[in-house]
């Protein structure tokens, strides 16, 4: 949880809020098809609860936040360029809308979707 303070009192930003921004930003990035469960627990969670949140991990500490994304990428794209650009845009959007520094964005490519096998 991130805590900030203003004249009126404290502001808490829960990881959930950061995840929402990161998810939206990742899914708007070119080449990203979907998020992917990172582990068994998430896979199971996804099975029992359709709205379960998966594919994004957020860790916060005093001086910022680390984000880890698990993604499915479109087959046929240069993966390195896609992942660079996702990381950049997630960092930018989280910093811009939430106002806390993003220290790292790790991108795990969990799979590729083949919509056209050429």
């Amino acid at each position: 949880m991130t805590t900030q303070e203003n004249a009126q009192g404290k502001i808490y930003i829960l990881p959930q809020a950061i995840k929402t921004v990161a998810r939206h930003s990742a899914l708007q990035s070119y080449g990203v098809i979907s998020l992917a469960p990172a582990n068994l627990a998430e896979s199971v969670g996804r099975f029992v609860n359709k709205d379960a949140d998966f594919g994004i991990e957020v860790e916060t500490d005093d001086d910022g936040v680390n984000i880890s994304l698990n993604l499915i990428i479109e087959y046929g794209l240069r993966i390195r360029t896609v992942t660079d650009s996702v990381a950049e845009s997630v960092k930018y959007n989280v910093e811009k809308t939430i106002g806390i520094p993003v220290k790292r964005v790790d991108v795990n490519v969990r799979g590729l979707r083949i919509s056209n096998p050429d």
Partner: protein
Amino acid sequence: MNSKPITLPSEDERHRLLQSPVNGEGLMLLFEAGLTWLMTNQQYVNSLNVFPVPDGDTGTNMVLTMQAALNEASQTPSRNVGEMARMFAQGALMGARGNSGVILSQIWRGFARALDHYETMDNGLFMRALQEARNTAYKGVVRPVEGTILTVIKDITSAAEVEATQTTKLSELLVAIVEAGDASVKTTPELLPILKQAGVVDSGGTGLFFIFEGMLRLIQGQPLDVTTAKVKPLSELELANTLETIEEGQDYEVVIDFAPKAEFRLEDYYEGLETIGTSIQVGEGEGIYRMHIHTLLDKRYEPIAYTEAVGTVKKIMMENLQDQMNQRQAEEEPVKCAPINAGEIGVVAVSPGVGLSKIFASLGAAAIVEGGQTMNPSVKELVAAFENLPTDRIIILPNNKNIILAAQNAAKVSVKQIGIIPTRNAPQGFAAMLRLVPDGTLEENEEAMNEAITEVHTGEITVATRTVEIEGVQVEKGEVIGLYDGKLTISASSVEEALKALFGKVNMGEFERITLFYGEGMTQTRVNTLVDQVRKDYPGHEIEVHDGGQPHYQLIIAFE
């Protein structure tokens, strides 16, 4: 980026190759024309960035992607369109640079799929290829953002769907495509608010438009390698940069502001100028045109007489370039770094200005690479800087956020042990340099430097390249803006005011020492007056001043 002009075949040859249906050679020629025209307009596309500091590289990324594609296709030239397009798409995929490059590679991938197994391409097939290109491009993203290159390929395809049923002539189909592309680019600010806020059209979409316009220009026999009468806003005339590449026949630079007569025709005016000189640029703003040209000594008055015939001359500026160049060259002696002892850690610093380079050298940098905002060094340049140093242990200070990636790539291709300190500006670089222990371990040094860069804060004063509102700060094009740790903080009408406003926003009590590095365009006297004022306003702070020589930023300020 060197823009090697591609030699296009003679007119007869062109006609033969472009007889509809087009074969593989003809398609190759169309792609070449698209690339050439994109290269000609590359700087314009780069200038369409949405942040008021120049850091756009969409044009460059698209050019590099197209070049990779064309290189691949030219390895195995084929008379068969299917084969040709397949190789082209393959090259685009491998060479895709940046987001726009990735989308472009998807467009060609879809395009190629539709042409698979075809010998030649008629208008119907061209239309189907565009449909496939559009579909493939949209498949790459779950939540497509409209007002981007995606919108432009969609609109182009819709126009082609109509036109392909009306005509069998490739030129007519391309006219419809280019018109639709032009209209589509113009709608992008309506679809994407950030573009409207920044007062620009989408850069990737514009790049795609130029590719198709290049194809059309080829068929119509119009030149592809000269910046034609493409009217740009005044602010985009890169007058300062044109100075760097002076060739023979460019003794004088003449800039004329004029109000044209009613019957003024830009195309004709442009043609006349071409007989007088080179590096021609014409800009328009609120009824006034600005013309920029480089001419020979004995032709230096011709642009004036010529312009007087077509309008009322308001203002003339003339400069002796040869003289200026000589002066610049005298000033720009390369900065020498002291040799390092074998095996010690060597630091490679990227520096945007001569003054800053000298400081890096005096702090013990082993090599300096020129580069910064809008002039990122390549991976090759970085590697060349440290490859010959007598050590296996290197630390790179990129000193710009856009160069960090190139530094990482340089680290990958070298066998040396390389540490990268993610410095985003020169003050952070200096802070890191001060912690250098040349005979320590790489890890110790990295740790100390990474800590050091968090301790220095940086202010930057520059001129907004366009009108924009970001995070509540309203900025007019040409206004002076101040950034604090990379964030747009204030806007003002002069450097002096900007500095004052920036200091007002910064918690000055936290710091003890302020160092100002002044850049191009700031004179010594102006800096002195400025610094006197700062000393008066902040008597408790230690104020230092250095000539940084950096472009774009009038001032870089380190707060410690």
